[in-house]
């Protein structure tokens, strides 16, 4: 088996045709494969999200994380860029949709692309992933403890509006992974989202882990829960294999 992977920073066309940064990892094996857009969390385009990108490539997918804060400027550290964006109230959903659409288009241009695209995100990236399932022609979405899909808007973040009312527009299968000790979203908010998806007859599966709270996938944080994370990665692998691999 040829298992070489190339990981590098690239430029891609994002919302409004803006040239933005992205982190791409792709298997060099020419066999056709799906692509995965990774949406980073609100604290930014950090080392750990790039680890996720590389892991997805090792799993066999072309993976790309668009730097949603690229417009802050060249050469700005990810945490300074995140601080700047936070002080401005976050990035608008429409802009994120355009950046993710640009990343998906980039992945589809790769010579080993089978044109099937999944999106995955944690935390606020989980919320953005849910948004993408309603806005973009993708084949799979993985929502890892996405908060503010259900809930009350935060006045300081006018762009961060709840999305559950858009459930009828969900156009692809969703995998949801949640911790039962989480407060963002709470188990009750996950119940609300689950009911909305059920009522709308959408294709989805949720898994909820006892003893796990927010950010249980993050290996560099005390919130890491090894059993939930290992099982969650298995679920992600099976889900993407089902929806992104050649039929």
């Amino acid at each position: 088996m040829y298992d070489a992977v190339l990981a590098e920073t690239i430029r891609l066309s994002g919302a409004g045709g803006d040239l933005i940064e992205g982190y791409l990892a792709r298997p060099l094996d020419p066999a056709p494969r799906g692509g995965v857009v990774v949406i980073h969390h609100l604290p930014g385009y950090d080392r750990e999200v790039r680890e996720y990108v590389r892991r997805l490539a090792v799993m066999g997918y072309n993976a790309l994380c668009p730097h949603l804060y690229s417009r802050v400027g060249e050469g700005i550290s990810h945490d300074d860029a995140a601080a700047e964006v936070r002080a401005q109230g976050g990035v608008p959903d429409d802009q994120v949709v355009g950046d993710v659409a640009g990343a998906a288009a980039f992945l589809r241009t790769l010579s080993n692309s089978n044109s099937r695209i999944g999106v995955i995100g944690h935390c606020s990236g989980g919320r953005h992933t849910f948004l993408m399932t309603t806005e973009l022609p993708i084949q799979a979405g993985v929502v890892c403890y996405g908060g503010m899909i259900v809930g009350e808007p935060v006045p300081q973040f006018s762009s961060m509006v709840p999305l559950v009312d858009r459930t009828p527009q969900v156009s692809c299968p969703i995998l949801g992974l949640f911790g039962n000790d989480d407060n963002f979203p709470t188990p009750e908010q996950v119940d609300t989202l689950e009911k909305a998806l059920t009522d709308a007859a959408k294709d989805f599966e949720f898994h909820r882990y006892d003893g796990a709270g927010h950010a249980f996938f993050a290996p560099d944080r005390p919130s890491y829960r090894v059993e939930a994370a290992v099982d969650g990665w298995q679920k992600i692998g099976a889900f993407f294999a089902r929806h992104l691999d050649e039929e």
Partner: protein
Amino acid sequence: MCTHTTETLPVTGSAKSGGSWLRVTDATVYFDHPVHTSAGHTLNIDLRRPADGPAARVGIELTAESARALAESIFSVLGAVPEDVLAQG
């Protein structure tokens, strides 16, 4: 996802980082995942000078317990200062 509760305010003063001082004009206060502290979430303060760009920033990440203790100390110290000294600035 975090609380997204974020406060921004103008401030007057200076902050030191990396061996040099920065005259700060703005502060952002929020509760979110830290970049560096070993904690799930922290109370974060960015002391900023946006006129000099996004990198003109001193970031602080404190556990909630530490942040409360710091806030109480600030009020305690300020409360002990005579009014006329405060008025002099």
